[in-house]
């Protein structure tokens, strides 16, 4: 948490340099957020890919592209059931392989500052020989895609319930039996050498891959501008909004309204854009909430509401891991905090909420009230403003910001 807050200020813009690894690890956590917990599939695949790439002595830049792509290789998988199938079952159905590779590549194209990644993701289920959803085979498949394919299938074979070293023989037999058909035989050979090291497997067991990836990530520090950051936020918003038709327009609504308010308060173009980015990120943690709860038609039980309440905690936790985001983590994650300290989950009050966080709170309330929810239709704008007025009078929302919103309507 921040140590000192200047409440009368918007907050800080992001730095001009960041580690791509940190941005992508946050994206990978968003992908791996499952009902109630964050799994590590993407990071584990990225670690295996990194080990293979280092053994192959690839160039630094090639390794970076490969590992970054590995972190988001499953961007195209839409629901939990399909994720389960793709990540835990060794043989992925052709239809599922094709659909998620195509969609993943399409989404990755949004990251136009990293133009190579879309291709790597497109080919990550391509077999070395045999049937693919197009005719590309063998060396025509990008090397990075071949490495991710192998790493991904190795990860899918690991059973978290069984002692990992007791699984190595079986995993290696299975992988070798697909050498030349599914996998590039050269890569299988290379991997056989890596697999002899107990330490490779134990790094997976004790989650040492987190610090290995952290160390690798120091090499990925580059110039990032707001446009690059916005393309990442755009993907995150897409992931959140695709969970349910009821959330499908929420992130964009909050981002658009928040940027407008920032504008009307006289802040710069850069500041408006940074707030919009925070708006696109604000519900990142919603990915931890099971769709059944998001789509429940009746009022939530107390237990279900507790599950929902975690979402801003996760938004903060995931964004705050990225160094150099300026105030974006606070702007995005404090939207359920209230000036009188009755919000959640940090229970902070006005003296710790800068203008950006206050803008996000007002925008989120307004957008939420004026959209359909499974348990109620959208409120009219007049009714929503009435509720916002009373929240302002109870000293929960910022009066000046509420006035700016009303004036814009």
């Amino acid at each position, binding site marked *: 948490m921040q140590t000192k807050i200047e409440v009368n200020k918007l907050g800080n813009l992001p730095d001009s340099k960041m580690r791509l690894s940190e941005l992508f690890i946050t994206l990978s956590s968003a992908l791996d957020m499952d009902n109630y917990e964050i799994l590590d599939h993407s990071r584990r695949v990225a670690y295996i890919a990194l080990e293979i790439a280092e053994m192959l002595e690839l160039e630094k830049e090639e390794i970076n592209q490969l590992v970054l792509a590995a972190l988001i290789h499953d961007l195209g998988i839409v629901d939990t059931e399909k994720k389960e199938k793709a990540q835990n079952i060794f043989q992925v159905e052709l239809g599922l392989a094709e659909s998620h590779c195509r969609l993943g590549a399409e989404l990755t194209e*949004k990251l136009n500052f990293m133009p190579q990644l879309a291709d790597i993701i497109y080919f990550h289920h391509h077999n070395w020989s045999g049937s693919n959803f197009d005719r590309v085979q063998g060396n025509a498949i990008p090397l990075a895609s071949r490495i991710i394919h192998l790493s991904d299938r190795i990860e899918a074979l690991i059973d978290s319930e069984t002692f990992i070293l007791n699984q190595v023989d079986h995993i290696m037999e299975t992988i070798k039996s697909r050498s030349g058909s599914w996998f590039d035989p050269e890569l299988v050979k290379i991997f056989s050498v890596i697999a002899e090291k107990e330490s490779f497997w134990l790094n997976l067991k004790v989650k040492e891959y987190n610090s290995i990836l952290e160390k690798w990530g120091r090499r990925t520090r580059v110039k990032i501008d707001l446009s690059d950051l*916005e*393309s990442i936020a*755009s993907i995150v*918003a*897409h992931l959140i*909004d695709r969970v349910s038709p009821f959330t*499908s*327009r929420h*992130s*964009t*609504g909050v*981002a*658009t*309204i928040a*940027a*407008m*308010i*920032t*504008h*009307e308060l006289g802040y710069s*173009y850069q500041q*408006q*854009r940074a707030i*919009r980015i925070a708006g*696109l990120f604000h519900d990142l943690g919603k990915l931890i909430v099971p769709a059944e709860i998001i789509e429940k038609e009746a009022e939530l039980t107390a237990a279900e509401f507790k599950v929902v309440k975690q979402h801003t905690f996760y938004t903060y936790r995931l964004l705050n891991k990225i160094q150099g985001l300026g105030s974006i983590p606070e702007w995005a994650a404090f939207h359920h905090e209230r000036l009188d300290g009755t919000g959640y989950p940090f229970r902070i009050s006005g003296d710790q909420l800068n203008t950006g966080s206050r803008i996000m709170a007002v925008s989120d309330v307004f957008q939420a009230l*004026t959209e359909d929810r499974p348990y109620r239709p959208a409120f*009219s*704008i007049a009714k929503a403003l009435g509720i916002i007025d009373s929240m302002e009078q109870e000293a929960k929302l910022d009066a000046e910001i509420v006035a700016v919103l009303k004036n*814009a*309507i």
Partner: protein
Amino acid sequence: MESKTDVINSEQVVISPVGNIDFSNSQDLKDKLLELFKKDYKKVILDFSEVESIDSSGLGKLLLFHKKLKEKEGKLIIRNVESDYIKNMFEMIHLNKVITIEE
């Protein structure tokens, strides 16, 4: 901001703004839209063929206007977006999923 209004019939109207929709004129656009809103048009079409850019204030006002129209079972449609900058921005923030954008 210059703009042209073409009434198609009692239900539909087309507005064609010209140039940049920004801080200096988004209030004008809002006033114009509100005027049409009061006249109960069900379908308000914004022709963007001569719009070069739009800022946060303009985008926010379009979204708010979309909400108002929707409340009366009306619809806001943006048509003929020529500027790649505007197209990309709508896609980037997913506003094209909220406001109908016609080719």
